[in-house]
C-alpha cells in the first residue's frame, strides 16, 4: 500500500503547553498547522503541573522582571544564558496576561487580580526578602493552562492528529528538516507529514528513571529524534530531582506547599532545612533541598520503619488554606500516601522530575548546532521548545514556576518566528526518499519474528540502572559502571522482539519505540554526567564537590555518534542590563 503523504506549513510534534501555544500563534495567523500528539492533547503532561507560573506581576508583593532574572541566573548556578533569561523574564508578564485573556481560571486576590504565591529561590531586590511571583490556579495551574490552550486551538481550528506517534524526523543533504514520519496508533499505518517548519515540543524524559513524577508518556521522544538526525543534546547531566515526591511512589507534592508555609522535618522532628539554608530554609532551590533530604536519610535521620523518607508538615496551615489553595495535594496525599495532610504530615523523598538539558535552541526556538570551529548555526526548518529544548534558561537547576513559563514563552516565541520563517520560505523542499526509508526501517525492525528479551524486561533493567548510577549524588566510579551497564543494555536492545506484531492500537509497539528513545536519552544523561568534573546545580559529585568556573562554566553537548562530548560557551551577556557575574550560591 502506498504511503499516505500530507503537507502542512508547519508541523508541531507534541501537544503540551509549548506545542499548543506555538500552534495557537500559527493558527491565529491562518497558517496550515498540524499538531501530532501520541495522546489526546489534554492528556499531555503539562496537565500535571501544580504550583504555577512565574511572572513579576507584583500583585501580592513588590516585584520586577529584573529581580526574577537575577533569581533565575542564580538558580541556574550561573550556567543559564543571560540573554535568554532576560528575554523570558520580560516576556513572562505579557504571556501570563495573554493566558488570562484566553480564559485560564487563575485564583484571585481581593482586588480581583491574579493570585501569586511564594516559591523556592524567589527574592525581592536581588537576593533580599522572599518574593511572591508564582501565578496560580489553586494547585492545578498546569491543568488550567493546558485545557485553556486546547480550547483556544479548537476555536482557531488547529488541525490535530490525536494519538499519532512521531517516528523520526526527515533531513535532506543540505541539512533541512522536511517533516516527520508518524504512525497512526489506532490503525498502525505510517503517514508522512511534510512541513516547511517542524517544532519539537515533546516534553521531558523522566521515565528514564524508575521513580519519577513524570507520566508514562515522558520518554524523551523528541530528544531522541534530534539525536538520530545528528543534532547534539545540551547539558543533559543536569536532571532535577524534585524534593517532595510521595515517598516510594514518586507523585509530586508541589513546592507550593512550602510556599504556603509547610516545612520538612526529620525523625527527630527537627526542621532540618534551617541547617542547610539558614535564610531561605524550605524555600531554598530544589537542588539544595533534595540534597538535604538525601543527606538526612543517609545519615540515619529518616522517618518510617526503614528510615527512608522525611515528613512534609502542613497541618498547621489549617483546613481553610489547605482546601482553598492546595486541594489537589490533599486529594493525592489521601489516595497515594494514605494521609490527610490536614491532620498528618506527608512522607516525601526526592523524585526524578525535570531535565534542564535538551535540544539546543536560541530564544526564537530555532535549533542551533555547532559547525566546525565557527559559531553555531541554525538547523533550517527545525524548532524546539519546552522541556525537550535547552535555550538555556534553567542552566544547572530550574526554579519552581519557571517550567510552565519556559513552555509558554518559548512556545509562543517559536510560533511567532515560524510565521516569519514561512513568509520567506514558500515551498516544500523535495522529500529525500533515502531518509524516509531509514525512518521506515525503524518501524519494520519491530516486525522481526523470533524470540528475545521483552520490552518490559529491558525497560525495567534500564530504569533501575539510571536510578542507581545517575541519581542525586554521583561519583566517578559509580557513574563509569553505569555507562558500561547502559552500553550493554543498548547492545541488547537489538535482540528484543515483540510477541505482538498486530496493527490496531498496538501499545506494545509504541512502548518498544519509546524504549529505543529512552535508551538514547538515558545514555546522553549518563555520558554527560560522567564527563562534567565539578558540582553545579543539580549535578552533584562528592569527588568534585565545588563548582569550577575556570574549567566548567560551559555548556556540554552530547552527540549520539560515538557518544562524543563537545562544549560551547555560556552566554553571559544579557540583552539590555549588566551581566550577573558568577558568585557563591547561598540560600
Amino acid at each position: 500500500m502506498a504511503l499516505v503523504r500530507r503537507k502542512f506549513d508547519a508541523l508541531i510534534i507534541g501537544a503540551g503547553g509549548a506545542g499548543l501555544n506555538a500552534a495557537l500563534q500559527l493558527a491565529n495567523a491562518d497558517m496550515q498547522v498540524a499538531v501530532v500528539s501520541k495522546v489526546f492533547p489534554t492528556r499531555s503532561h503539562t496537565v500535571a503541573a501544580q504550583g504555577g507560573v512565574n511572572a513579576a506581576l507584583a500583585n501580592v508583593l513588590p516585584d520586577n522582571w529584573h529581580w526574577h532574572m537575577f533569581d533565575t541566573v542564580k538558580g541556574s548556578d550561573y550556567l543559564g544564558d543571560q540573554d535568554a533569561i532576560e528575554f523570558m523574564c520580560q516576556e513572562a508578564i505579557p504571556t501570563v496576561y495573554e493566558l488570562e485573556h484566553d480564559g485560564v481560571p487563575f485564583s484571585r486576590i481581593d482586588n480581583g487580580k491574579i493570585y501569586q504565591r511564594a516559591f523556592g529561590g524567589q527574592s525581592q531586590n536581588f537576593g533580599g526578602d522572599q518574593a511572591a511571583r508564582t501565578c496560580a490556579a489553586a494547585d492545578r495551574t498546569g491543568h488550567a493552562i493546558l485545557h485553556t490552550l486546547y480550547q483556544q486551538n479548537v476555536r482557531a481550528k488547529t488541525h490535530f492528529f490525536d494519538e499519532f506517534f512521531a517516528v523520526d524526523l526527515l533531513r535532506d543533504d543540505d541539512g533541512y528538516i522536511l517533516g516527520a514520519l508518524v504512525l497512526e496508533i489506532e490503525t498502525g499505518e505510517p503517514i508522512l507529514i511534510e512541513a516547511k517548519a517542524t517544532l519539537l515540543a515533546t516534553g521531558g524524559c523522566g521515565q528514564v528513571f524508575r521513580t519519577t513524577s513524570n507520566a508514562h508518556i515522558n520518554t524523551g521522544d523528541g530528544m531522541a529524534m534530534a539525536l538520530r538526525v545528528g543534532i547534539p543534546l545540551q547539558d543533559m547531566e543536569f536532571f532535577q530531582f524534585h524534593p517532595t515526591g510521595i515517598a516510594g511512589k514518586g507523585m509530586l507534592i508541589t513546592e507550593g506547599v512550602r510556599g504556603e508555609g509547610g516545612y520538612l522535618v526529620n525523625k527527630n522532628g527537627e526542621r532540618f532545612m534551617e541547617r542547610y539554608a539558614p535564610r531561605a530554609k524550605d524555600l531554598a532551590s530544589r537542588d539544595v533541598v533534595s540534597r538535604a533530604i538525601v543527606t538526612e536519610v543517609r545519615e540515619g535521620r529518616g522517618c518510617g520503619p526503614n528510615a527512608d523518607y522525611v515528613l512534609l508538615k502542613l497541618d498547621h496551615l489549617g483546613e481553610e488554606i489547605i482546601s482553598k489553595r492546595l486541594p489537589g495535594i490533599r486529594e493525592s496525599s489521601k489516595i497515594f500516601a494514605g494521609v490527610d495532610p490536614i491532620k498528618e504530615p506527608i512522607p516525601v523523598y526526592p523524585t526524578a522530575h525535570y531535565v534542564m538539558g535538551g535540544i539546543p535552541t536560541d530564544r526564537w526556538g530555532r535549533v542551533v548546532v555547532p559547525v566546525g570551529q565557527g559559531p553555531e548555526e541554525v538547523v533550517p526548518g527545525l524548532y524546539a521548545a519546552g522541556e525537550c529544548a535547552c535555550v538555556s534558561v534553567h542552566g544547572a537547576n530550574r526554579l519552581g514556576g519557571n517550567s510552565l513559563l519556559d513552555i509558554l514563552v518559548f512556545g509562543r516565541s517559536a510560533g511567532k518566528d515560524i510565521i516569519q520563517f514561512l513568509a520567506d520560505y514558500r515551498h516544500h523542499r523535495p522529500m529525500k526518499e533515502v531518509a524516509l526509508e531509514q525512518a521506515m526501517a525503524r518501524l519494520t525492525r519491530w516486525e522481526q519474528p523470533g524470540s528475545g528479551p521483552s520490552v518490559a524486561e529491558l525497560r525495567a533493567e534500564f530504569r533501575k540502572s539510571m536510578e542507581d548510577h545517575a541519581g542525586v549524588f554521583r561519583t566517578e566510579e559509580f557513574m563509569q559502571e553505569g555507562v558500561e551497564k547502559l552500553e550493554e543494555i543498548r547492545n541488547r536492545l537489538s535482540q528484543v522482539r515483540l510477541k505482538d506484531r498486530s496493527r490496531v492500537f498496538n501499545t506494545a509497539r509504541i512502548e518498544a519505540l519509546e524504549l529505543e528513545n529512552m535508551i538514547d536519552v538515558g545514555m546522553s544523561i549518563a555520558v554527560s554526567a560522567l564527563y562534567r568534573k565539578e558540582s553545579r546545580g543539580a549535578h552533584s559529585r562528592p569527588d568534585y564537590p565545588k563548582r569550577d568556573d575556570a574549567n566548567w562554566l560551559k555548556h556540554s553537548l552530547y552527540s549520539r555518534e560515538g557518544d562524543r562530548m563537545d562544549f560551547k560557551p555560556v552566554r553571559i551577556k544579557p540583552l539590555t542590563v549588566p551581566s550577573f557575574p558568577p558568585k557563591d550560591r547561598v540560600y
Partner: protein
Amino acid sequence: MKFRVFRYNPETDNSPRMQDFDVEPFRGMMLREALMEIKKQDESFAFRHSCGEGVCGSDGVNVNGGNKLACITPISELKEPVVVRPFPGRPVIRDLIVDMTQFYRQYKEIKPWLIHKDPLPDQEVLQSPTDRDKLDGLYECIMCGCCSTSCPSFWWNPDKFLGPQALLAAWRFLADSRDQATEERLSELDGHYKVYRCHTIMNCVEVCPKGLNPTKAIGHIRNLMLKNAI
C-alpha cells in the same frame, strides 16, 4: 488477586472474550498498576494510561460494573474477581480502548472557550474571588469520560444529547464572570435534546473521579434558560 479483563483485537478475534489473570498485589496497588502487571504477562493487552495520578484522564475503565479512573482506584477496594471492561456504549477499538470521537465532538459543540467581547485591558481582566469561586467544581474536569459513558441518555442519543461532560463545560463558561456570550450560548443549547435529555439519573455524579457534579451544572443551565425565557 484474580482479574477478569475484556479482550478484543479486531484483527484476530471474531468476538470479544473475557480473559483471567492472576496479579500479585502489593500494599497501595492501584488498578492501573495491576493492568500494567497484566500487560507484562501479555504484552498484547491494550489500555490507555499516562500520568498515574488522576489528572490526565486517560485511563477511565469500567470496573465491576462502575466507571472509574484506574490510576486512583485502589485494588484493595475491589471485589474479586475484578471484572474490567471498556467504557459502556462506546465502540471498542481494542481491549479496553474505546473510540471517544463522539464524546470529544460534543465537547467542541459547546464552544468550550472564553468569549470576551469588550476590548481587553493591558493587564488581567479583573475577577473577584467570589466570582472565581463559581468556577470551582467546574474547571477541574479532566475529560476522562467516566460520566458521559455511564449516562443512559448519552447511550441512547449520543449525537443529540450533549452529555454530562460537555454540559458541565458549558456551565463552566456560562458561570465565568469574564465570559460575554451568555445569550449565544443559551440559544445554542436550546431545543429538546441538547440539555433536556438529562433525566437526573445522576450516574455522572456517582462516577466522577474528581467529585464534580454535572447534574447540578445542568440544573443551573436550565434555570438560566428559564429565567431568560421569561
